[in-house]
C-alpha cells in the first residue's frame, strides 16, 4: 500500500504545474466516446480499491495510462498495471503481495459525436500482456449529451488466456456498463454507474466452458473538472448475484462486496 502511495503522490503533485484542459470523464468504469485532439497527451492514473470478500481481503489495482491523440478521431494509450492484495492466512494474520501485472495497449476510435450527432459511438480495443497471461478486450461505446445530462453505455467482451501451472486456461468475460449523470454548475457532475459482469470459464479439471459468475454492481459517481485537471470517483457496491454457480445474494467468491475507483486526468 505504501508503495502505491509513493507511486501516486508524485503524479498528483504534477497536476498544478501543467497546463489546463483535459478530456474530462464523467464516469470511472464506463467510457465515453471522446478522443484527444491530435498530438495532445494526457496522463491518467487510476486506482481501484476492492474490499469486502471473506477473510479480510483487500485489493488495490493501480493503472497508469498515457493517452495520445492521433488525429482523424483516433487515440492510443499505453498502460502500466500493478496490483496489491492482502488476504487472511487463516490463522488470524494477513499476507500481502504486490505484483506488476503487465502492460496494456489501447486503440480508441470515435465514429460519431454525443453532442453533434443523434448518438455518439466509438470502438475500443485493448490488449494486455503480463506474467499472468494475455487478454483481448473489445468495447462498443455509445453516449449522449443533452443539455446538462450525460449518458453512456458500453458493451464489453473480453477473452483471456491465463498461464496456469497445468497450461493455458481460457476465460471469457461479458460486461455491460451504464453511466448516467447530470451537471451541477460548471465543474461538477453527479450520477450513477451500473456494471453487469459475467465470467465464463471451465471449472477446475474440466474443459467445458460455462457461466460461473455473474453479478450486478451499482453506485454513485461524482466527477469534477478544474482548469488544470479533472477527477472522477465511483463507489460501487455489489447489488446482486445474477447467475452462475454458488448460492447467496452476493457472489463473493469471484467479486468483491465494494469496488471504489478514483481516476485523475492531467494534460501534459
Amino acid at each position, binding site marked *: 500500500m505504501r508503495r502505491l502511495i509513493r507511486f501516486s503522490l508524485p503524479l498528483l503533485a504534477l497536476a498544478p504545474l501543467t*497546463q*489546463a*484542459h*483535459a*478530456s*474530462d470523464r464523467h464516469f470511472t468504469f464506463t467510457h465515453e466516446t*471522446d*478522443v*484527444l*485532439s491530435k*498530438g*495532445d497527451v494526457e496522463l491518467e492514473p487510476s486506482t481501484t480499491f476492492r474490499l469486502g470478500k471473506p477473510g479480510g481481503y483487500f485489493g488495490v489495482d493501480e493503472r497508469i495510462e498515457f493517452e495520445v*491523440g492521433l488525429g482523424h*478521431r483516433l487515440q492510443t494509450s499505453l498502460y502500466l498495471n500493478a496490483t496489491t492484495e492482502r488476504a487472511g492466512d487463516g490463522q488470524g494474520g494477513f499476507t500481502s503481495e504486490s505484483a506488476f501485472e503487465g502492460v496494456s495497449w489501447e486503440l480508441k476510435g470515435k465514429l460519431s*459525436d*454525443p*453532442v*453533434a*450527432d*443523434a*448518438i455518439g459511438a466509438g470502438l475500443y480495443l485493448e490488449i494486455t500482456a503480463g506474467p499472468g497471461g494475455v487478454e483481448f478486450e473489445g468495447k462498443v461505446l455509445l453516449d*449522449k*449529451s*443533452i443539455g446538462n445530462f*450525460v449518458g453512456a453505455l458500453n458493451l464489453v467482451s473480453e477473452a483471456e488466456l491465463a498461464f496456469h501451472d497445468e497450461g493455458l486456461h481460457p476465460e471469457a468475460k461479458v460486461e455491460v456498463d451504464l453511466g448516467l449523470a447530470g451537471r451541477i454548475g460548471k465543474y461538477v457532475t453527479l450520477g450513477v454507474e451500473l456494471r453487469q459482469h459475467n465470467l465464463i470459464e471451465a471449472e477446475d479439471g474440466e474443459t467445458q466452458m460455462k457461466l460461473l459468475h455473474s453479478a450486478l454492481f451499482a453506485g454513485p459517481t461524482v466527477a469534477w*473538472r478544474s482548469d488544470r485537471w479533472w477527477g472522477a470517483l465511483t463507489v460501487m457496491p455489489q447489488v446482486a448475484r445474477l447467475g452462475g454457480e454458488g448460492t447467496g445474494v452476493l457472489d463473493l467468491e469471484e467479486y468483491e462486496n465494494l469496488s471504489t475507483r478514483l481516476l485523475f486526468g492531467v*494534460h501534459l
Partner: protein
Amino acid sequence: MSAGRLLAVAIALGSQLGCSVLVHPADVHVAWATPRWPDVTLAELAQGRTEYVDHCAGCHTLVRPEAQEPEHWPEHVSEMEDEQGVKLTADERQHIVRYLMVASAIPVVPKD
C-alpha cells in the same frame, strides 16, 4: 410493456435525440451570413461544422452554438487558441467561427 408501447417509447426517445443534433448548415444560414461575409458558401459552413466537431471535442463535450451569442464566438475561439493551446490554421478558424455564428443565430432550420 407491449411491443407497440416499447416502439412508441423508442420513437419518442429517438426523435428527442434527433432534435439534439448540431444543426447542419442550410440556405437560411447562407442568407444570414452573406451580408457579413460576401464570399461565404454552404460548403464552407458545412466544412466549419466538421472542423468544429474534429477540433473542439478533444477536451470537453462540444458547447452548443446557441449557448453563446453569435458575436461572442470569435472571442471564444481565440481564447481556446491563446489559453488552451488549440491549434487551428487560419482557414479552419474562419470556417469554425462562421459555422458557430450562423448556428448560434439559427440553431434549428425552420420547416416550411
